C-alpha cells in the first residue's frame, strides 16, 4: 500500500467538500433533521411507553448509530458516484494506483464525510434532548467500528453493482440500506420479528450491535462477547464485500465498461 496515493485520492474528495459550502451544508443537514425527528419521537416514547419508561434516549441513540451506518455507506457510494458523474472514471482507473489503495482511500475518506455530518447532530442532541451517545462509554468505539465496517461493506456491494451494471445501478445505492433496516432491529428487540426472519437477522451484525446498545443503556451491562461477535460478523461481510468488488472490477474490464463510464 502506498499511503501517498491513498492520501491523494482522499484529498480529491476533501477538496470537493471544501470547495462547496452547499455540499458541507448538505452533509450536516440530513443527520440534524434526523436528530430532531427521532429526538421528539424518543421523547414521546419515553413519556408514554412502559418498555422505554426508565431510559431516556434509547431510540435517539439508536437513530444516531443507524445514521452513522447510513452516512458511512452513502459516503462510500457518493465518492464512487462522483467519479462517474464527473466522467473521471477512466483517469482514475488508468492512474498507477492499486485497486486495494482505491478501496482504502474511499474507506478512510468516508469516515471524514460521515463525521462532518454527524458530529454537529450529535452535539445538538445533548442540550436539546439531554441525550449523548457518549453514555455508551468505551463499548461505543467498538459498536461504531462494527457499524462502520458494515456500512463500508454495503458501499462496496453497491459500487460493485455500479461497476457491473453502470450508472443505472445508482438508485439501488440509495435503497440498499432501507432494504436491510427492518431486519437490523434498530428500534425494536429481535423478538418482534417472526422466527424465520430472526434467523436471517442474526446473520447481520446490526442486530447484535443494537441489542447490545439497548442492553448497555437499559440494563447497564456490557457483554463484550456480543460486541466481539458483531465486529467479527462485520469483518466477514467486509471481506466478502472486497471480494465482490474485485470480481466486479475484473468483470467490468472484460465487458469494457470502465471506458467512458459517465452520466
Amino acid at each position, binding site marked *: 500500500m*502506498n499511503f*501517498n*496515493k491513498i*492520501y*491523494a*485520492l482522499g*484529498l*480529491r474528495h476533501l*477538496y*470537493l467538500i471544501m*470547495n*462547496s459550502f452547499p455540499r458541507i451544508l448538505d452533509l450536516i443537514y440530513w443527520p440534524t433533521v434526523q436528530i430532531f425527528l427521532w429526538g421528539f419521537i424518543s421523547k414521546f416514547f419515553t413519556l408514554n411507553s412502559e418498555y422505554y419508561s426508565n431510559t431516556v434516549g434509547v431510540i435517539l441513540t439508536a437513530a444516531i448509530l443507524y445514521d452513522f451506518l447510513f452516512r458511512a455507506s452513502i459516503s462510500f457510494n457518493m465518492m464512487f458516484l*462522483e*467519479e462517474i458523474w*464527473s*466522467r*473521471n*472514471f*477512466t*483517469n482514475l*482507473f*488508468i*492512474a*498507477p*494506483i*492499486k*485497486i486495494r489503495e482505491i478501496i482504502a482511500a474511499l474507506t478512510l475518506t468516508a469516515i471524514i464525510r460521515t463525521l462532518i455530518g454527524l458530529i454537529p447532530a450529535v452535539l445538538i442532541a445533548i442540550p436539546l434532548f439531554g441525550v449523548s451517545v457518549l453514555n455508551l462509554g468505551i463499548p461505543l468505539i467498538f459498536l461504531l467500528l462494527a457499524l462502520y465496517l458494515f456500512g463500508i461493506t454495503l458501499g462496496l456491494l453497491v459500487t460493485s453493482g455500479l461497476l457491473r451494471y453502470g450508472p443505472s445501478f445508482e438508485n439501488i445505492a440509495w435503497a440498499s440500506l432501507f432494504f436491510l433496516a427492518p431486519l437490523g432491529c434498530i428500534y425494536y428487540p429481535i423478538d418482534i420479528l417472526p422466527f424465520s426472519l430472526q434467523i436471517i437477522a442474526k446473520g447481520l451484525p446490526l442486530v447484535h450491535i443494537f441489542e447490545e446498545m439497548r442492553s448497555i443503556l437499559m440494563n447497564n451491562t456490557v457483554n463484550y462477547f456480543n460486541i466481539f461477535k458483531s465486529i467479527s460478523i462485520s469483518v466477514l461481510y467486509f471481506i466478502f464485500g472486497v471480494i465482490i468488488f474485485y470480481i466486479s472490477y*475484473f468483470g467490468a*474490464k*472484460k*465487458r*469494457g465498461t*470502465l*471506458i*467512458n463510464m459517465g452520466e
Partner: protein
Amino acid sequence: MLIEIKNLTKIYNNFLAVNKINFQIGKYETIGLLGPNGCGKTTTIGMMLGLVTPSMGEILIENKNIKSFKRDEILERFNFASPYVELPKKLTVKQNLEIYGRLYGIKNLDKRMNEISNDLDIKNFYEKKTGELSSGQKNRVSLAKSLINKPEILLLDEPTASLDPDIGDFIRSYIQEYKKKNKVTILLASHNMSEVERLCDRVIMMKKGKIIDSGTCKNLIQKHGRNNLEETFLKLARSKDEF
C-alpha cells in the same frame, strides 16, 4: 521495439470489436491510429491501458507481456488524454494537477506543476474550477494531466476534437515541440488528417476491428493514388474490400 501488439482481439458478447490486430511501435515513434467511428480504436487503447481485458492476443512492452508487470508499475510509464474523459469538474485546475501528480508519485510536484502549466499556458485559469473552463482550456488541462508524469508512452484520443483552429494548432504545435524535447512514444487516435500528417511518423488504418493498411503518410497516399491523407482515409473507409 517498445510496444508489440500480437493478435490482439476483443469480443463483446458476440460482437467482434478488435480482430487479431498486429502492430509494433518503436521507441520515440509517433503512430497515428485511424479509422471510422466504431472501428476499434478506443477498445485498442483501452486494452493497452489495462481498462479492457483482451479476449485473445498479447501486448508486449519491451518484449515482456504487459500482464507480467504490476498494475501500478506499468501505469506509471503511461498516460492518456481524451476530450471524452474529464477531470473532476468541481476541483480547480491546480487541485486536479496536484491530485494526479500525487497519484503518479511525482517528485518536486510544485516545480513540475509550474513547468507544465507555464508550457501549456494554463496559469491564468489555474484557480478556476475545471467545470467552468471552455473546451480549449479543458483540453489543455487534460493534456497537462497526461504529461504530468512525463510518460514514456502517451496515448492521445482525438486531443483536438471540437477545438477552434487556433487552439487546435496550439495543441498540435505543443505536442510537436514536446516530442522534440522529451523521449516519448505516442499513439494518437484522430479523425483530423492534417494533424496526423503533421505529427505522426507512421499510421495504422483500422476498419471493422481489423488493420486494413499501415505505413508512412506519404507511402499510403502514393499507394492509394490520392492527393492527401484525408482522401486516402475516405477511400479506405468507404471501400467494401478488405485490404
